[in-house]
């Protein structure tokens, strides 16, 4: 199949995209959300919204000089600042209502202490590592009977590589867009891993079956045939998942918009990698093994 034949092109493409993602992460850095670094966010809705300057002045006066003020919609204002105690929060709302002179409704308030932020951060890393580990072990187990022409742990290794590929790229895109990295972002990455493996397994499973059936003596042909056989399924499944994620993005709650966006990107990349990267990599490994 052409995908296997021109695999070097797809490898190069992925290498380039991964390189760009790392470049984005290194130069722009992650924009950590308040749940990872601690801090607070308040969203208020005014009857008649004051000017940005007035708000900024009021906040400066009340000791919130570091606050970042964002206007949203026609009536709403979002303010991000350090983590606040209850007394601080009251001072903040007073400042936002310009000393009680303006009618406003507090739509949302979150304050997360630095301890919680630190805890969530380390837990997020731990969860990512554990998901990868769990999946690799499972794949190595599921493919334990497949040892010809390449051994089962290589399937596991390639799956891991694909996993990393599938989370690095969406993460890079998010950093590039300057989006906030919060708990839901990590959940999205972990879900992408689940779905990505899902895809890779379906293709590998077909290769496993075709190897058993000995449809060809040539590994490359076997992989190519398996890819062709699972191609429609890969596209259709991803399409349905991407459809529901698109409805979530367009119609769903504001709080899960970024979440559905990153999942959408991740699923697209995941489908691409399971077809264009994972199986061709198997062929590449087999070729190298035979050569030397």
């Amino acid at each position: 199949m052409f995908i296997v034949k021109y695999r070097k092109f797809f490898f190069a493409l992925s290498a380039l995209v991964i390189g760009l993602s790392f470049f984005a992460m290194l130069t722009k850095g992650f924009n950590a959300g308040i749940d990872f670094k601690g801090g607070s966010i308040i969203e208020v809705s005014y009857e008649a919204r004051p000017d940005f300057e007035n708000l900024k002045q009021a906040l400066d006066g009340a000791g919130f000089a570091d606050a970042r003020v964002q206007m949203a919609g026609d009536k709403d204002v979002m303010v991000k600042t350090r983590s606040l105690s209850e007394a601080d929060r009251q001072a903040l709302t007073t400042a936002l209502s310009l000393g009680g002179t303006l009618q406003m409704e507090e739509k949302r308030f979150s304050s997360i202490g630095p301890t919680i932020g630190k805890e969530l951060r380390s837990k997020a890393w731990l969860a990512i590592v554990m998901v990868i580990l769990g999946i690799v072990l499972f794949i190595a187990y599921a493919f334990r009977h497949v040892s010809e022409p390449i051994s089962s742990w290589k399937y596991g290794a390639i799956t891991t590589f694909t996993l990393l590929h599938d989370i690095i790229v969406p993460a890079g895109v998010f950093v590039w867009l300057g989006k906030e990295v919060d708990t839901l972002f990590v959940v999205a990455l972990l879900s992408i891993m689940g779905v990505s493996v899902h895809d890779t397994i379906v293709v590998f499973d077909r290769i496993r079956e075709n190897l058993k059936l000995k449809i060809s003596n040539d590994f490359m042909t076997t992989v190519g045939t398996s890819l062709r056989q699972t191609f429609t399924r890969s596209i259709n499944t991803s399409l349905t998942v991407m459809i529901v994620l698109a409805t979530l993005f367009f119609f769903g709650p504001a709080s899960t918009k970024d979440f559905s966006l990153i999942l959408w990107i991740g699923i697209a990349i995941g489908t691409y990698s399971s077809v264009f990267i994972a199986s061709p990599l198997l062929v590449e490994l087999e070729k190298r093994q035979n050569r030397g």
Partner: protein
Amino acid sequence: MWKTRFGALLLLIIGAGVGYFIYASEPKLHEGKTVYGQAFSEKFPFKLGLDLSGGVQLLYKADVSSVKPTEVKAAMDSLRDVIERRINTFGVSEPIVQIEEKGGITGPVEERLIVELPGITDVKRAVEMIGQTPKLEFMTERSKAELEAYNNAVEKFKADQAAGKPLVIPAELLAGPYVPTELNGRFLERAVLEFDATTREPIVSIVFNNEGSDLFAKITKENIGKTVAIYLDRDLGNSEPISAPVVREAIVGGKAQITGQFTAAEAKTLVGRLNSGALPVDKLELLSTQTISAPLGAKALAAGITAALWGLVIVAGFLILWYRLPGVVATVALAIYVVLMLALFKFFHITMTSAGIAGFILSIGMAVDANILIFERTKEELRKGHGVHDAVREGFDRAWTSIRDSNISSIITAIILFWFGTSLIKGFALTFGLGVIVSMFSAITISRVLLFALPFKGHGSIVRALFGSGFFKLK
């Protein structure tokens, strides 16, 4: 064949029944009109998380440094009870007060208290109510000499005051007539208002825990004939004891009664204060606050439902257009999957959050995957020239390993996510994981039975058209 058809009919009836149950249980769905079975089904409402219902979530760290390690659990349990009692005065419909032990893997062990108040947005009052840590102390009289000195000081002070002399507050006066004991609110299990059987006088009964009982027995034994003063928030400036009953005898067994000249109302207040004073930990520190206004929550909920409905409609449309007859079967299976999931949310009181709805919506997409795998496989078998029946059977058998292996990896992810869990993520992991399991069932059982029940055999051109897919024509 007839057995399969009977099974298929049964599945459809069950699916419709579960669907009706969901319909009857949500008054909004039938515009408030009473429908059959409503009384029963309404006992299982959807449980909405704070981000959908609006409300306050407060996360506290409990300082338990002066509690013995073996008693931390008991202390936290009674802390939860105390906070629950305080919150009940708020009149919140379904408050959640949870204790949580954090750490071990990611840091030192920390005792946490999570308080969720749906529908409340007055954070100020909530924080005041919970955060105040009234301190209840039991104190005994000073020694005779010291007490004399104190009384003299009081006399002198009063005399000076009457004579208009410059006021000097002597140290004895500041120290007060009582000395602290080890006994404090931490050892109080509860206080109850009772009435004397004969005189109808109000009595405040207090019950100590085991350790408290021993301390109380010791204190009463050493202070027969004297008063034991009960102070509330002495260090906040309440210099008068809330009660100073005279000890008549040594009290063993951890039960004591405070009688005195108080009205039933006063006694009731005292009981309330005693109970609220019995905060069994040293300090509560507010770690995080989250507030969502009710309209914002309602908006998020409506948006989530809209997204789920659109997702379902578009996916169903895609399935039917692409896979034709099997697509119709998959759509029916998907519908049954959705009502089953909703029923599970209701039965197991799974809290719905916006992340949970996202997980559910994602699982709708994943649920279809098993069907797609099976149908693609069936089509291959049809191409090889098998009859529909055999092709469908082969399709199911051969797709099974893929479905199993790929779903196991999703379940692994869901389990780890659940463990990772803040309540937000737990909601996602639970709906997603449950969705994967239920969808596996719905794809391989429901779709299978329904497909086999269809009256098609062989591979005539109509059958081929019905079972074909996409833009391709089966040869």
